[in-house]
């Protein structure tokens, strides 16, 4: 299978500090990849470089087979940031529709006269993620798990080929995280979306990804097939 994302010898130096240090990573189409590592290892920065939110100091990046990142290929990326990036004062429905901004004329987004096909898509996603009954509720009134589902719906309505998720279930207990990830994994597989996520929980990483990369001090130290993962294996990778 071809690589959807390929980062080669990426470096990011800020104030003489090496944030990302000769990082190389390849993510195959339709795969689910988790990046694990201690706080400050550079996991979030790596995702932001892949999304074009941060420019690296040097290195090469290929996305969907082409060098660099243009608007067309950026439109194939979905992003679930740390803290989810939802707007607390707006309803679930509006937050989901925000994900569809790139698929409608600007005047429609400003006036709130959304195209019918996008409305259908939004309702279908809310149904799949079991949040239809919350459509008029403000985000600030939702539980952690419900917020995750809204963030997923907002990302899926973008019709991404690849989703980059930054510790998306970090605020949930294990049971709630599994409930959200089960739904997400099912939809992801059905739609053939590639997933690159960061996570702290080795159990979640093992259950929902094919490969786990261990990142330390701005570089990928090792990678392991999730089938082969055990707690000892993870600990030894961190110690490496």
């Amino acid at each position: 299978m071809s690589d959807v994302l390929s980062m080669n010898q990426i470096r990011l130096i800020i104030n003489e500090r090496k944030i990302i240090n000769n990082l190389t990573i390849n993510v195959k189409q339709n795969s689910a990849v988790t990046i694990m590592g201690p706080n400050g290892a550079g996991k979030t920065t790596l995702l932001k470089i892949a999304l074009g939110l941060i420019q690296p100091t040097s290195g090469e990046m290929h996305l969907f087979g082409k060098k660099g990142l243009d608007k067309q290929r950026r439109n194939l990326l979905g992003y679930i940031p740390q803290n989810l990036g939802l707007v607390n004062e707006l309803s679930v429905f509006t937050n989901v529709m925000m994900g569809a901004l790139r698929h409608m004329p600007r005047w429609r987004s400003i006036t709130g006269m959304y195209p019918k096909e996008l409305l259908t898509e939004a309702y279908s996603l809310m149904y799949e993620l079991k949040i239809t009954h919350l459509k008029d509720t403000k985000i600030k009134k939702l539980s952690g798990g419900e917020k995750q589902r809204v963030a997923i719906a907002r990302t899926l309505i973008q019709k991404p080929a690849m989703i980059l998720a930054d510790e998306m279930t970090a605020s949930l207990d294990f049971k709630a995280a599994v409930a959200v990830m089960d739904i997400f994994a099912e939809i992801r597989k059905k739609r053939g979306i590639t997933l690159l996520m960061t996570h702290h929980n080795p159990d979640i990483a093992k259950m929902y990804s094919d490969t786990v990369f261990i990142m330390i001090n701005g570089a990928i130290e090792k990678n392991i097939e999730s089938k082969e993962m055990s707690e000892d294996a993870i600990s030894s990778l961190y110690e490496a």
Partner: protein
Amino acid sequence: MKPSRFQYTWIVLFLIIIGSSIHLGFNPLSIIEDTDNSLTIIQELLAFDFSVGDKVIFSLIETLEMALIGSSMGFVLSIPAALLAARNVSPFFISAIFRGILGILWSMPPLLWAILLVVIVGLGPTAGIFAIALYIMGLSGKYLYEIYESQNHSAYDAMHVIGATRMQIAKFVTIPEALPHMSNQYLFLLAYSVRESSILGLVGAGGIGFYIIHHLESLNYGKAAPFILGILAVTLGMDYISTKLRKRLVYH
């Protein structure tokens, strides 16, 4: 024992205050030196002359109306101005220009704006309304762009990845996230504007201040007293209502 840096700071500050007092010839005892004169003024003020009651009511209504119109105008204008001044929403050069404009509006007190505006639009409440509006626009704008800039960065990142325009970001993230602060801020500014409007009459820009200065200059302290009492009651009342409403907004 050697004084600490903190103690040095206070010592230096104290010396500056003493130096400034000497420079200005300020004598704190002067307020009690001419006791007879002070007592006479207080006595005359306390002999309230309520024959001016209708004018008190009229001028209080005018003051409240000036505050309401002026602060609302200033507040509404401050919302887009702050968007243009916020570094996370606007390009650098536009943000720099609008920060400068808001800084100028804010740094001139309403009384100074009123003096200028009386020359431009003439005597009366119109000058006062514009003075309040300009000052509130500066004050509210400065406060708002700081709120905009301190908002959750992850929502902005998500919008950038979606490819949202600046206007879409303002509509979907910046303004909705600031709304609870805005309502709170508007109520505070309204109460503040009532206080400010009450003195604009001193320079002929409408409101109750005109009557206060008129009666004080005519040495009719008894007639000035009901106006002073009126503005005290309205200011305290507005402050009380505004605080109550703001508390309710925080809890909802």
